[in-house]
């Protein structure tokens, strides 16, 4: 019963979304659903429109046709801060950390939306603001423990090796306690061990916090291991969708990856 209900109301619906950059159609009438509690992988060759799709969902781009519904309501025209306020957090392909700030401060920025007192009052109203700061600090410390980055909490983010920067970016996204977490190539450029750690963290986040996750990933073994469902994009179109085992044997997907000429 509850499983049926969950199927009936997706957390996020992308309905016939098209995005155009000048003459280039980056997305052509793409539709997909993200169900509560699942890990959805979005895959496809380079230039397939994966990051564009993520940017549309998080409000950085607006589609020229189609709609985006979050929890059943139209969110198509929202801007990034408004999307963030809905409980959608994201990471970026090329790591967008605040490089001059410490790891701890970076993660604390993820709490900004959770802070109740108005930020103008905050400067003057020391007492309550201080207490609130301490409460948020406790949440952040839990995330730091969870992602095993205690040792680097005071280090400026810009000085960290790439793999750790990716982990800190995940921590900042988690600090917002999102309902939906969008990860743009969370494992790109990582060593095998770092990838294993990251896989474990993603699965733990999904299971322990019940966070719904949509991720873009190139490493097929990772995709097969951790995702519940896979959506495949090629040249801005959705060419396949389904459980990983079925998608990997889909002839259209194999063609897209092996580069069969498009007729």
């Amino acid at each position, binding site marked *: 019963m509850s499983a049926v209900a969950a199927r009936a109301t997706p957390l996020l619906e992308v309905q016939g979304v098209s995005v155009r950059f000048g003459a280039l159609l980056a997305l052509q009438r793409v539709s997909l659903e993200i169900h509560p509690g699942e890990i959805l992988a979005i895959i496809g060759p380079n230039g397939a429109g994966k990051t564009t799709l993520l940017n549309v969902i*998080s409000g*950085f781009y607006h589609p020229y046709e189609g709609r985006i519904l979050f929890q059943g309501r139209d969110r198509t025209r929202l*801007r*990034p*801060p408004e999307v*963030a*306020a809905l409980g959608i*957090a*994201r990471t*970026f392909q090329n790591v*967008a*950390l*605040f*490089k*001059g*700030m410490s790891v701890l*401060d970076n993660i*604390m*920025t*993820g709490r*900004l*939306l959770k*802070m109740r007192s108005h*930020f*103008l009052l*905050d*400067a*003057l109203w020391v007492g309550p*603001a201080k207490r609130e*700061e301490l409460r948020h600090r406790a949440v952040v410390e839990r995330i730091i423990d969870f992602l095993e980055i205690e040792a680097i909490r005071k280090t*400026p983010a*810009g*000085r960290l090796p790439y793999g750790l920067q990716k982990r800190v970016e995940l921590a*900042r*996204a988690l600090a*917002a306690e999102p309902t939906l977490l969008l990860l743009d190539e969370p494992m790109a450029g990582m060593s095998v061990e770092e990838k294993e750690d990251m896989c474990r963290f993603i699965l733990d986040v999904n299971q322990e916090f019940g966070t719904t996750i949509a991720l873009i990933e190139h490493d097929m073994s990772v995709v097969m291991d951790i995702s519940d469902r896979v959506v495949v994009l090629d040249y801005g179109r959705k060419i396949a969708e389904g459980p990983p085992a079925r998608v990997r044997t889909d002839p259209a997907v194999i063609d897209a990856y092996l580069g069969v000429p498009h007729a």
Partner: protein
Amino acid sequence: MSSALAAALAPLADIAASPRFFLEVLIGGVAAGLLYSLVALGFVLIFKASGVFNFAQGVMVLFAALTLVGLMERGVPVGAALVLTAATMVVLAVGIERVVLRPLVNQPPIILFMATIGLTFFLEGFGEMLWGSNVKKLDVGIPDESFQVAGILVNKLELSAAVTAGVLVAVLAVFFHGTRIGRALRAVADDHEAALSIGIPLRTIWVIVWSVAGLVAIVAGIMWGAKSGVQFSLSLIALKALPVLILGGFTSVPGAIVGGLIIGTGEKVAEVYWGPLVGGAIENWFAYVVALAFLLVRPQGLFGEKIIERV
């Protein structure tokens, strides 16, 4: 050689001989320095929040002073004129955000810098069109005369300028070092996209800092305009703020203040005591030489964040 050295050191003896006069020179320097600080502060605020070096800061000072004087010439009482000028600067900030900054989000800093150069010429022309280009006298009701405290001459106008600047700086320090807005500002300065993704309303932050920079420009415009008249050269004090920024660091509010004081007092002392040795006009280049020396030793300034760039 030794006689040259003796000549160079001779002014030190003058300082020791008349400490009271030296103090008066210092006070004059502090007053000028605080005004440099105010202009530098406008730069720092915008630079911190948007990573933009706002070339138009000097012209904003001129524009604010022109608006104030223009309103007063048309018979608006001082208080109302001040409020209207402040409102104009806020409207200007909203306009700049809409027309200049918003379309240029995520562009490289050099593009935004170029945009502020354009803004400079626009504001200059627009200000002259509205209020005319002749030199105007700004009378804020404080006479430009001196009185004695414990035998030391103090200029009333300079004193009130110094006090106002001091108060403003303290208010701003409290405003921007409250934990959250400070963090949000640094976040915005560091990475626009990331700041947006964690829910920082970039546009609101920009309007706030440009408004505050505009209000700071009003104060600087009044203080400077009351001393030397409101005219185009007012916008050139922005050039004096540059060495202050290099000294104090582009990202530091306290740096702007300390830098301003060092430059202000330094150039006054150098001018009065060492000026005659080289035929004067030290005041015009002293600040730049100090800044150059600083760039060699400490490029991030006294209080600036150390620049870490991985290559």
